[in-house]
């Protein structure tokens, strides 16, 4: 049976380790992934890592500050989500997909353009879906008919 | 050249033409209703349905003077300056009144009348009759009277046009029918003891504009609006009458003559008219059979037959083919191609041509020929073109008896089974391989190695050459019974040609290859092609080199 102090210290150290790992995994994800939404997820994961540490410290010190900070982190994350998703949506509309490599001209000047050296093999088996043969030929419609529908 | 005005439309009439108002209106595209008038019969103007207004146009002043009364168009000659008016109120009123008069005594039993659907009285009543009937509708009492073996008379329905009477007097010359009584008691009848039994009696049913004369063969069997009509050629004799084959759901219900002024005019004989029953006979053969080692015949698949018969024929040695005079030109052509393709020296022979009695000619010139096959002349023309060793059927039999031929293909298609005798069949039985195609069991059929059921005339698609060299095409009307293949389709398959057999396509090929048929390269008109005209003069240069 551990004493209260030992238990608290052990708990803190465990939480710090988990926080560190969570933060790092998030960092690696942010650095490597190219899908804007996944990058955003990774950033949130780093915030989670920090939150875990903060809560641990708050309990260790019997202080509400840690939890308060986490609450503020939540708030900031919500704001971040709003802005980031709006940006992502807009970038998607402009660029056509969610690839961050599309926006290389946002980097500072004199950087070499990044080009993929190899195209990954498409090792996912393409599912074959049953397809119905189209029945007959589409009737040609007059422009008048398309504009003024005779019925709804 | 004269000009006739019909409803303001100018119609040209030749100098030597003698036409009446109905024909002149027809040239102008106007239909004048009529019951009693028929182009092949004399004019009596008894029905009064064709009443029109008539007048004359003065060629000098151009002034038109109309007669105050209406006249029957059928007996008004159309000559230069004649004016007909068929669309005036007066004419319409006359027609309505005539129609009403005809209907006063006519039973309204259209539901059970076989004529309903093609009845002039119905049609004209809808077109020209009054909306309301002023006379009472009385209960209908059937007065049915047998005219003879083939025709019944429903006395009530008669409108006394006397077409039938005139037909027996003018066309057949037998004069069985007459009008008895006078006035409103007029009826059609026969002399007691002299029934309507001439060989063209069925035509009176077609002539009758209403349902008074009924065909016993067709009676009550089908309503006319269910049937589909297909242009055909009668195969009863070598006359080659033009007919309409009327069928519903692959069953022939009746044959009717089709107008062809060059061959049969409007008529056909009873033998041809009622000679279709073998198509649906109970004993008609279906299912190809093969003789096995024990001498018994077992049913095989058509595909098996077509797959193995060629190799077997090749292996069998000297070949002979018997071309039935019931085959169409196209089928005979394909069979020759097939046989000569296997053995270039194959013997070809014309099958037996059944002949019964002597030719019978009616006063108006219509002839029933003794030669009871439709295409003897066509087959002979083909044989003379292909040449090689061609024999008559008897000579071929002798040849087989001598052992010079080891295998034979015999096409039948006869309506009866007595076309070959037991003795002949016994000679054929000596062959290594005998293929017989027929519709009914015959002595030859029983000795065949391969028994192949064939098609009837209603199922064939192709052309025949009649007794005086007229090529006429018939369309298939019904599908063959399950298990039987029409010859053309079988030869098509044996020659490994793709697709279904199409008579028109093969005829074009045939006509391009054989100079005698070169006229058929283009369209074959519905009235046929006379192959004897200018055959040498118009021979195409390309055909000469072939």
């Amino acid at each position: 049976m551990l004493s209260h102090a030992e238990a608290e210290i052990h708990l803190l150290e465990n939480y710090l380790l988990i926080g560190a790992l969570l933060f790092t995994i998030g960092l690696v994800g942010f650095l490597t992934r190219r899908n804007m939404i996944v990058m955003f997820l990774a950033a949130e994961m780093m915030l989670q890592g920090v939150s875990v540490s903060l809560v641990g410290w708050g309990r260790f010190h019997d202080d509400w500050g840690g939890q308060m900070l986490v609450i503020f982190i939540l708030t900031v994350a919500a704001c971040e989500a709003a802005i980031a998703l709006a940006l992502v949506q807009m970038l998607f509309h402009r660029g056509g997909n969610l690839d961050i490599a599309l926006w290389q001209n946002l980097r500072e000047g004199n950087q070499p353009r990044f080009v993929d050296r190899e195209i990954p093999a498409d090792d996912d088996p393409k599912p074959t879906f049953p397809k119905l043969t189209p029945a007959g030929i589409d009737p040609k419609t007059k422009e008048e008919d398309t504009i003024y529908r005779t019925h709804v | 050249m004269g000009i006739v005005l019909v409803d303001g439309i100018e119609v040209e009439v030749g100098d030597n033409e003698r036409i009446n108002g109905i024909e002149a209106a027809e040239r102008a595209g106007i239909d004048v209703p009529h019951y009693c008038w028929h182009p092949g019969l004399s004019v009596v103007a008894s029905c009064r349905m064709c009443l029109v207004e008539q007048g004359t146009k003065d060629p000098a002043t151009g002034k038109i003077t109309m007669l105050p009364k209406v006249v029957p168009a059928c007996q008004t000659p159309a000559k230069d300056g004649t004016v007909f008016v068929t669309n005036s109120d007066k004419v319409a009123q006359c027609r309505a009144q005539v129609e009403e008069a005809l209907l006063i005594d006519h039973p309204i039993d259209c539901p059970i009348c076989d004529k309903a659907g093609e009845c002039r009285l119905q049609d004209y009543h809808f077109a020209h009759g009054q909306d309301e009937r002023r006379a009472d509708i009385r209960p209908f009492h059937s007065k049915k009277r047998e005219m003879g073996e083939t025709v019944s008379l429903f006395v009530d329905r008669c409108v006394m046009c006397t077409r039938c009477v005139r037909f027996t007097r003018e066309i057949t010359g037998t004069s069985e029918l007459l009008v008895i009584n006078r006035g409103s008691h007029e009826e059609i009848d026969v002399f007691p003891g002299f029934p309507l039994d001439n060989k063209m009696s069925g035509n009176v049913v077609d002539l009758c504009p209403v349902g008074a004369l009924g065909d016993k063969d067709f009676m009550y069997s089908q309503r006319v609006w269910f049937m589909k009509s297909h242009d055909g050629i009668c195969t009863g004799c070598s006359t080659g009458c033009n007919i309409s084959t009327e069928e519903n759901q692959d069953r022939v219900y009746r044959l009717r003559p089709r107008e062809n002024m060059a061959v049969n005019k409007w008529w056909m004989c009873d033998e041809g008219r009622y000679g279709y029953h073998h198509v649906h006979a109970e004993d008609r053969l279906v299912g190809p059979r093969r003789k096995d080692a024990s001498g018994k015949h077992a049913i095989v698949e058509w595909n098996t037959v077509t797959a193995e018969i060629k190799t077997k024929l090749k292996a069998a040695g000297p070949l002979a083919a018997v071309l039935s005079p019931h085959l169409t030109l196209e089928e005979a052509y394909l069979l020759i191609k097939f046989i000569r393709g296997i053995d270039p020296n194959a013997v070809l022979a014309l099958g037996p041509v059944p002949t019964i009695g002597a030719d019978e000619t009616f006063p108006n010139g219509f002839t029933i020929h003794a030669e009871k096959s439709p295409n003897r002349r066509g087959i002979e023309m083909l044989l003379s073109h292909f040449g090689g060793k061609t024999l008559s059927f008897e000579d071929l039999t002798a040849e087989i008896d001598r052992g010079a031929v080891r295998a034979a293909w015999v096409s039948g298609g006869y309506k009866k089974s007595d076309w070959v005798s037991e003795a002949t069949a016994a000679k054929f039985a000596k062959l290594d391989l005998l293929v017989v195609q027929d519709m009914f069991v015959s002595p030859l059929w029983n000795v065949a190695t391969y028994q192949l059921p064939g098609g009837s005339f209603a199922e064939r698609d192709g052309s025949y050459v009649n007794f005086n060299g007229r090529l006429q095409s018939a369309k298939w009307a019904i599908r063959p019974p399950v298990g039987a293949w029409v010859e053309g389709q079988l030869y098509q398959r044996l020659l490994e040609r793709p697709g279904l057999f199409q008579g028109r396509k093969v005829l074009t090929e045939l006509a391009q290859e054989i100079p005698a048929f070169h006229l058929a390269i283009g369209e074959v008109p519905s009235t046929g092609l006379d192959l004897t005209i200018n055959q040498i003069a118009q021979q195409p240069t390309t055909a000469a080199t072939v």
Partner: protein
Amino acid sequence: MQLLQALRVLGIEPLTALACVCFALGLWLLLPSTTARGKAFGLIFTTISLGLFATNLHLLSDWVSDAVFYVMASVTLVSAVGAVTMRSPVYCAIWFALTLLGTAGLFFFQGAQFLGVATVVVYAGAILVTMLFVLMLCNPEGHSLYDRVSWEAGISAGTGALLVFLLTWTTATTVFVDNTAFTDKTPAKDSKEPAPIVLTATAEQQNKNILAPRHVEKLGGELFSKYLIGVETAGTLLLVALVGAVAIIAHGKHAEAQAAAVRTSDGMTSGLNEEGRRNA
């Protein structure tokens, strides 16, 4: 052996170092753009590294707590790895949702009930669902070619491992002092050793304050008294973000047509473009 000795001198557990190496290797192999076999190896390495890290963890007061904690921690970390390595962004989001649930569990375990639930409500309930919404709007088939390629996976994983190593090392070398029993045992200020971290809260204090049964009441009181300015600022921030998001979207819609024109004329396409194909 010498290396091990040297590591020991520095206060580094060799197992931790190994764990970091395995961690880097595993992440590198697991990230997209590798083959299926690479993924299997990555899975093995990551498992090993997480297991090795687990040796660094300390046992807690009783076995129930241990079990709960280990389950929570493993759920959090495994799903975190899944969230950054899955190909399909939808799966990434699902794994991240699991990470959030794990974190919420960890918060609960720490007695931060409100935070645990708030994390689920805000993150899982709002942010992630919105993200899925956007994802399904933008990329309804789920996966695309650029999700198969990672930027500089090896370097990033190495950096991450280094970071973990440094953090772990720092934690391991930090001295914790229990000061609840002996209040006078403050360390000397001029000592060469790093300043120890002092635990001053007793169990009774914690139960009254941060682990109180009426937890929310306490938290609310603290939030709206001591941290009131922070709350107000956060509120303002939220408003600003709201307005900003609306402005961006509205502007984006206006500029859509122009952007399409720009897209075609500028030749601005994905990195997986014709150029890349030629170079490959």
